[in-house]
């Protein structure tokens, strides 16, 4: 999949799918990145001075950085000057009739309710489907207990002090190349604040957030859970999202104070490119949670099936004593997709625990890598980690790789890692077929069983959809 820089440029500027109406946008910046662009972006979003400066500081650090090349990914150079760093919602098809029929076909297979399809397909929401009332009800309910759940832009304007206090404290501006880029030009995202002692009354999802329709390609999310609070946050959606941007570089920061519990679930199903590896989203994400207080807990659960390229390592910094970090992942790649994903567990506090369960499925000509670090610092007395990584291969042309790193500096730590890679067992397949189950169904059954451990961690409705999603993603991989 070696791509020439020119092709990448062409790919980056290409719009996904045909048939969208081109509207003239109200606000948009010409392609290119510089301090002026960032100032302009900040001005459009009516941000305070400190935010503009913060962005500029990130940009100046970004200029000195080089893109990481250590991941097991093949991609051409990305021309960052060819991207437009701000565009207000645009290009919305007016009705479902204008949406790519292939996309609608997928919705059928996934069983997405009719009224939701329009929203997912990016049809201007107010025209077809009344989500505002649902969202408003949710908002009232949250406000009653003091939970703040809004877009990042709104938070910067209305809860500036909170944002200023926490933004960049988990993923600093200069953390890595893509995080620095995001810090400089982030478009929007979610902001969640759960006050002390509150158990969030509902699962929070971008789905319910007003104005969530277009978060743009540089998403920034910040979740703060104060003492003894609990929150579960769902990101993404099982249905493929229509998106016109090729490069995505998101940053997600989680802060868990004493006894707080954050559960962050992701289902990522961005456009993976077609069967020949043309197009598809480049997804470079920095996700990190910090268990800042004692007895806090952060759980990452992800189901990754989309994107042409996934570069994503949701991590936990276990700073508080007795804090717990968990990572559950299913990553499925098909056709020419490439995924390099995993986690980092940094044990700093005493009696910290972490658990990693990773399931990789590669099919077609895809490359699927798990990359994980478990680090036990000197003072992390009695740290405990268990890592389990399993991969299955479907087909002769795909690759599945495991790169775990274990760095242990404390003699009281117990760190364990085990991994297996194999193809779907012929015996299991044969058994299923002998019971009258077709090959494709048998494979998806076995894959479902293989992923069960992770699906169990997902909120129920997500788990049901995730199963279907795997079936759809695996189509054409067998035989």
């Amino acid at each position, binding site marked *: 999949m070696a791509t020439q820089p020119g092709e990448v440029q062409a790919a980056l500027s290409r719009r996904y799918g045909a048939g969208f109406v081109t509207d003239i946008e109200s606000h948009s910046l010409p392609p290119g990145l510089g301090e002026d662009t960032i100032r302009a972006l900040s001005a459009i979003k009516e941000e305070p001075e400190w935010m503009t400066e913060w962005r500029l500081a990130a940009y100046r650090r970004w200029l000195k950085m080089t893109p990481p090349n*250590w991941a*097991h990914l093949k991609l051409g150079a990305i021309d960052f000057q060819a991207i437009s760093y701000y565009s207000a919602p645009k290009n919305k098809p007016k009705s479902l009739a204008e949406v790519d029929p292939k996309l609608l076909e997928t919705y059928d297979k996934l069983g997405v309710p009719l009224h939701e399809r329009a929203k997912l397909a990016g049809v201007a929401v107010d025209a077809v489907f009344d989500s505002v009332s649902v969202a408003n009800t949710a908002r009232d309910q949250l406000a009653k207990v003091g939970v703040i759940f809004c877009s990042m832009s709104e938070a910067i304007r209305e809860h500036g002090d909170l944002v200023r206090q926490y933004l960049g404290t988990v993923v600093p501006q200069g953390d890595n190349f893509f995080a620095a880029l995001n810090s400089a030009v982030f478009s929007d995202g979610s902001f969640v604040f759960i006050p002390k002692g509150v158990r969030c009354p509902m699962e929070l999802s971008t789905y319910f957030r007003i104005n969530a329709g277009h978060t743009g390609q540089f998403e920034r999310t910040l979740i703060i859970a104060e003492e003894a609070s609990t929150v579960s946050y769902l990101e993404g959606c099982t249905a493929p999202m229509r998106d016109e941007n090729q490069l995505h570089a998101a940053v997600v920061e989680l802060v868990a104070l004493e006894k707080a519990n954050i559960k962050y679930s992701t289902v990522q199903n961005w456009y993976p490119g077609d069967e020949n590896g043309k197009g598809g989203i480049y997804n470079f994400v920095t996700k990190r949670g910090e268990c800042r207080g004692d007895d806090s807990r952060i759980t990452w659960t992800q189901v990754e099936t989309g994107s042409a390229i996934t570069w994503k390592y949701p991590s936990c910094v276990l700073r508080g004593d007795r804090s717990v970090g968990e990572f559950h992942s299913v990553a499925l790649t098909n056709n020419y997709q490439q995924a390099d994903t995993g986690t980092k567990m940094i044990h700093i506090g005493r009696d910290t625990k972490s658990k990693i369960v990773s399931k990789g499925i590669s099919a077609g000509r895809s490359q699927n890598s798990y990359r994980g670090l478990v680090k*036990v610092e*000197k003072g992390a007395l009695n740290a405990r980690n268990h890592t389990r990584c399993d*991969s299955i*291969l*479907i*087909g*002769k*042309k*795909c*690759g*599945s*790789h*495991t*790169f*775990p*790193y*274990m*760095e*242990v*500096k*404390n*003699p*009281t*730590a*117990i*760190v*364990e*890692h*085990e*991994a*297996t*890679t*194999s*193809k779907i067992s012929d015996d299991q397949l044969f058994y299923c077929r002998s019971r009258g189950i077709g090959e494709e169904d048998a494979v998806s059954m076995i894959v479902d069983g293989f992923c069960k451990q992770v699906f169990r961690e997902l909120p129920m409705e997500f788990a049901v959809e995730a199963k279907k999603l795997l079936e759809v993603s695996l189509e054409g991989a067998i035989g």
Partner: protein
Amino acid sequence: MQAAAAARPPGCGPAWLDDARHQALRAFMERGLPDTREELWKYTALRALQQQAYAPCDEDAASRSVADDLLRLDGCAGPRAVFVNGTFRVDLSRLDNLPEGLTLQPLSEAMQRQSEPLRFLLAARADEDEDGLTLLNRALAADGLIVRVADGVRASQPLHVVHVGASAGSAVGWHLRDLIELGEGASLAVVEHHVGDDASGHLANLVRGVTLRANAHLDWTVVQRASRNTTLLRRTDCVLHDHAELDFHALELGGKLARHELRVDLAGARARFASRGAFVLDGRQHADSEVLVTHRGRDTLSDSLWRGVAGDRARGVVHGRILVQPGADGSDGGFYNKNLLLSPTAEIDTRPALEIYADEVKANHGATVGQLDENVLFYLRSRGIPLDTARRMLVRAFCAVTLDGIQPASLREFCETLLAEQLPETEA
């Protein structure tokens, strides 16, 4: 370091050799020593080397007296080749009664007498994956060992190769290049033995190529008890043809910095590689064991079991990679590594990795880092065994599994004794 390398005129052999050396030296100057940004050197920094000046050779290496006790190794009474500070010593070696079909020649001698047959080795183009040290070795290797076993010959006694680091007044850096070739159906046992009494802090940079033709079998045991001042860097490239087998054992005890990059290419069908290794470190020792296995042939088998123990301020690094190439169906690869951390200032970094490009495969790995089981310790103490003895017993048992297959039995027993002597004082 680089200055020392540049100052030395690289050899004065035939023109092609000088050319190759100059070329390698230029490549090295461009590339420099490997640094921690390189994946295979992530946990092993060579900064200290850059500040140290090494004499290009030990002028008196040929005449230094070496106690026979130092060279002796139980179970190795047969042929012996001895290098002192990187120079082959015919007077200390025992090469007169070599079995028929086994030929052994020091590289220095081969280069003087008949270098042409070695052209393929010494003037070969550098592979892309060669790091700065290998290039430096290409440029500067002055000696080494060329071992060949003819088709069908089965050498009965192990070949004992001793590398002695002797005190030389100043630190010496030497570069050795070995070649071991086993013909079809041949079999050989090699015992690589590193010893030293030097206080000078030498640098040894060894590069070895091993070729096992169809059905050949090599049994290779490394007993590494180099002096605590020595920097010992080794790279071994093994190619195994159809049905060839390599059994590798390593006991790494000495050295200030001891690294071994063992690359095994299972190129032929049904080739088999098994490795068992252990390192036991204390003080400020640093050991780095890289086991990189590539499955290329069909139905190839690899199985590795490594144990590491680090006490005091030591740092142990283990990297086991299993790479299964497209088409290597039926491959079965395993890498298992367990480590003990005995001190709050010691560190273990372990990385098992799998890279799989074929689907009819089984590949597994496992790695753990932990400490001695308190319950077991308590049990032993309740039976009247003092704490310190109990600890030593457990650490010994922890490592002993890697010594099991060492042949002959007397060598294995000797290794067990060495292990017992090495065990670091644990802190209460």
